């Protein structure tokens, strides 16, 4: 499954400045593994030491926050867009 991943500004040092990259995987966990293979170090910025999503990062598969789906086990069908976004608020 090929998905496109939107990369936030603070992670673009890992992707050579690219704001959008492609990755493979049938679940979010697999997509993050594949990202790590291409852009070493990026996964540890998104996941904490226990392998869970960091507290202040929001990951979306399509338009949905994965916390409303199956978290890291969320399926990532071919062509999905995955977005990684730092938490913001105050609205």
């Amino acid at each position, binding site marked *: 499954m090929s998905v496109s991943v939107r990369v936030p500004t*603070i992670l673009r040092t890992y992707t050579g400045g690219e704001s959008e990259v492609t990755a493979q995987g049938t679940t979010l966990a697999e997509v993050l593994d594949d990202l790590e293979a291409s852009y070493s170090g990026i996964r540890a910025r998104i996941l904490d030491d226990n392998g869970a999503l960091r507290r202040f990062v929001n990951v979306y598969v399509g338009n949905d926050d994965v916390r409303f789906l199956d978290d890291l086990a969320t399926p990532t069908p071919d062509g999905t867009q995955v977005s990684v976004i*730092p938490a913001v608020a105050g609205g």
Partner: protein
Amino acid sequence: MSAVIAEQVTGNTPDNTPGTTPGIREGAFGNARALICRECGHEVELGPHYACMECFGPLEIAYDFPVVTREEIEAGPRNIWRYKALLPVPTDIEQSPNMEPGFTRLLRARNLGRELGIETLWVKDDSTNPTNSFKDRVVACALSAATEFHSKVFACPSTGNLANAVAAAGARAGIKTVVFIPSNLEKPKQVNSAVFTESLVAVNGNYDDVNKLASEIAGEEDGWAFVNVNVRPYYAEGSKTLGYEIAEQLGWRLPDQIVIPVASGSQLTKVHKAFQELVKLGLVEDKPYKVFGAQAEGCSPVSTAYKAGTDAIRPVKPDTIAKSLAIGNPADGIYVLDICRETGGAVEDITDDEVRDGIVLLARTEGIFTETAGGTTVGVLKKLVESGQLDPTLETVVINTGHGLKTLDAVADSVGPAATIDPSYAAFVKTGLA
């Protein structure tokens, strides 16, 4: 958490002085020294950054405060710039066009206090700010930062009030504004933005969807200052002025208890930060105080986590009339939990009917027409007294953050004429109102 605050008040890193980013004028951010990660303490230079490179944690402002006296503050203007030494703004901030929010009234609420059985109760009434919500405070600080960064667009995702404040402040400052709101927002809040800007964008989705979109745009468009995204550290500091004013208006002392509405949780954390700073700077005496957070049941992720005794806040899809508080994924929620727990306060939530009752109660006891956020806060205050969580013998402050004319529909069906009569004295007598 208090360690970080202590560090911010007294800390000093000689090789990270303000004004070192190219294009930023000397002193552009006053006594602000750097941006510091609230989670891991990692520091970066002052700039339009909001998330930590190391851990995604929120960046906030660290200062090297000089000695600040009560006299200096009291001699300042009757708006938030009297506290400019404690904000990330230049010393000549009064020279730039702004809406001059702040120094709103602190009212002794005897009638509401009597009604609820609270001996000493105050309402900090922020509905009298230029666009009728506390958001004018945060926006004034964000505008200063956007100006110093030479931003070409001033923008925000908003639950309504922020959009109003950004659109008005941008108009006055002569900077292009683009504001994003959920398309189902209250009509008056839409009009209150659209009148100030030709670029109001209604997004089909809830606030969290709008927020996501704004974050994506902020990552792509150069020169855009999203007040609560990429200039958020500066923005958030504006809420400290609520805390400073309350202390100054009480005669330079802290209240025993304070009740604050919670959407993202930013305001609550900053009022607490303000109290801590005043103590550290010797401007008020140290004393215990309790901080309480107020949410509406239909969007109460922080209150739910508080009651469950956990640190993990599960995002929710909001469904409440308190739309200004309808943030289902509150970024500062965990800090709200920390502060309310550490100070001995609580986070409570109430139903939409109780929100409406809160609006009418404040109106009929104190003559203040609040919006749904204030109805939530007053309703939660009532519930906290009834449940014994709030001590009615201690001096209490409740913050009214916004004006009721913006959410008229919330109470339009609950209030109205007591009678509709012919213009005759007899008809009037029949109503029983004489």
